[in-house]
């Protein structure tokens, strides 16, 4: 008995700093079951409900005029908000990673601030800034510029909630890389822009792409902040997530899930690309990674 036990141990290489296979598989089972119920089941439910009335109904729902308008608006908002946050992320990480100055740690903390603000509050601040009873709103209105319940408000709210994504990906990466490459380029006669385009940017391209992916997923999927500033004018200021909500509240669940399945697909593509980047270019993305 003892001998077989010992042989089994040697065979399976159970070390005193590991658990028995039985314990291991029990823990793995509990963890995977929890993940399956909490994470995978909702994902499955989206696609299941989207096709519950058949493929024809699915494409009919996506072909609706309002659904098309929502898709276009979502793409437009992301196309404005993401590049702006990329420029900001590049500028902030250049200033923070390549220079030593007072208050740097505080600035890094400030950049993360939007993550600790509830999305609804991110929308609310713009309502207070541009809404009725504010100073700016009526002033801009007299020049014919509508911010609230229009595209600019939606873009501003989206920029607010996606503000840190690119910067917080690039800052640790560029801090890790130091300033040696840039100093070499400069000493060889390159000017600042040449150094950035030919030395820094190639060094950080995968990390930048990683940040853009996460920023874009959040920009296209943002709900709370945009719900507050959009006014939800059908076919005009409803983004895809807002259109999903409207359809769902009108008891048109199949159409809501059809549109939602596009967003879920976007999430899946984002996850696949993100994981591929981590596997292929793990070292070139970030020391810390994650969120």
């Amino acid at each position, binding site marked *: 008995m003892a001998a077989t036990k010992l042989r089994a141990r040697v065979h399976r290489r159970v070390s005193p700093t590991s658990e028995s296979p039985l314990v291991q598989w029990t823990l793995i089972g509990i963890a995977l079951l929890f993940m399956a119920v909490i994470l995978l089941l909702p994902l499955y439910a989206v696609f299941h409900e989207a096709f519950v009335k058949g493929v024809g109904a699915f494409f009919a729902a996506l072909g609706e005029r309002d659904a098309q308008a929502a898709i276009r608006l979502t793409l437009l908002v992301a196309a404005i908000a993401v590049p702006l946050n990329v420029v900001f992320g590049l500028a902030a990480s250049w200033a923070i990673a*390549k220079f030593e100055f*007072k208050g740097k740690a505080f600035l890094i903390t400030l950049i993360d601030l939007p993550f600790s603000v*509830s999305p*609804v509050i991110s929308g609310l601040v713009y*309502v207070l800034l541009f809404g009725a009873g504010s100073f700016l709103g009526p002033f801009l209105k007299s020049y014919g510029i509508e911010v609230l319940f229009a595209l600019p408000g939606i873009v501003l709210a989206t920029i607010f909630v996606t503000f840190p994504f690119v910067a917080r990906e690039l800052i640790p990466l560029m801090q890790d890389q130091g300033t040696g490459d840039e100093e070499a380029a400069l000493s060889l006669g390159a000017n600042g822009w040449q150094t950035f385009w030919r030395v820094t940017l190639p060094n950080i391209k995968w990390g930048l792409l990683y940040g853009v992916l996460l920023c874009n997923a*959040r920009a296209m999927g943002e*709900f709370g902040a945009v719900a507050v500033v959009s006014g939800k004018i059908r076919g005009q200021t409803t983004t895809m997530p807002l259109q999903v909500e409207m359809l769902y509240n009108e008891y048109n669940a199949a159409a809501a899930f059809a549109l*939602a399945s596009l967003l879920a697909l976007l999430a899946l593509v984002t996850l696949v690309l993100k994981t591929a980047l981590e596997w292929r270019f793990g070292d070139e993305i970030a020391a810390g990674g994650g969120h």
Partner: protein
Amino acid sequence: MSAAVSFAPRRGWSFRQPSVIPGFGLTLGFTLTYFSLIILIPLLALAIRSAGLGPEGFWKAATDARVLGSLRVSFVTALIAAGVNVVFGTLIAWVLVRYRFPGRRIFDAIIDLPFALPTAVAGIALTAIYAPNGTIGALFAPLGWRIAYTPSGIVIAMIFIGLPFVVRTIQPILEEVSHEVEEASATLGASRFQTITRIILPSLTPAILTGFALAFARGVGEYGSIIFIAGNIPFVSEIAPLLIYIRLQEFNYVGATVIATVMLLLSFALLFVINLIQAWSRRRYGYGSN
């Protein structure tokens, strides 16, 4: 370089250390301007509105029964959800870091799903599953336990959105915990259980606390995934962010501002606590997640 040095004041204090790399003024200037326009000024607008009420007016609006009710719902459900996430998040991080099994890397990637899936999509999907006629809701309905349209539904949605915060905070620390201390513990005669509870878990404590705080903060502020499943009954299942939204729809900007200010103060306090834990962890163990 000589130019930068000669312009820098040679006394003890200078704003920045000299460097040959150009673009400091441009990039920092742009960063601060953009930050001010997008984040700082809007948040200040909120603070000014709030301050304009005066302490008495603020207190009166903040202690309105429905406001207190919504804050209570938000905080209690977020506490429960963060507690559940700490238990299962730690277990998942442990399994993903320590064990090898088929599909491990896929499950590792799936952890980030709540970050990538739009909250409204998660909200309607969870509602479909936990409604009385849904896959899981139907299992509990005969027991008399309704999940969707009750506070239980809020907890479920918060577990969904908070899970990656706990796993992703603990995972890198668990990878860093050195094997030698475990071996030392084992050679000194500790059982595996003792090694885990007395050696490994204490060194994970800062990460677990940070993960708890992050999941809790996210849960309190969450809106999109909750409103579909919550039922939204005042005093029972109405969360604070929803009440802000309702006040705005009523053009009651004062009411909305007051709830938002209370929530912001609490989340900034949480942020401060998280930073304290991180600093303590770095001092105590020499590493911390960041």
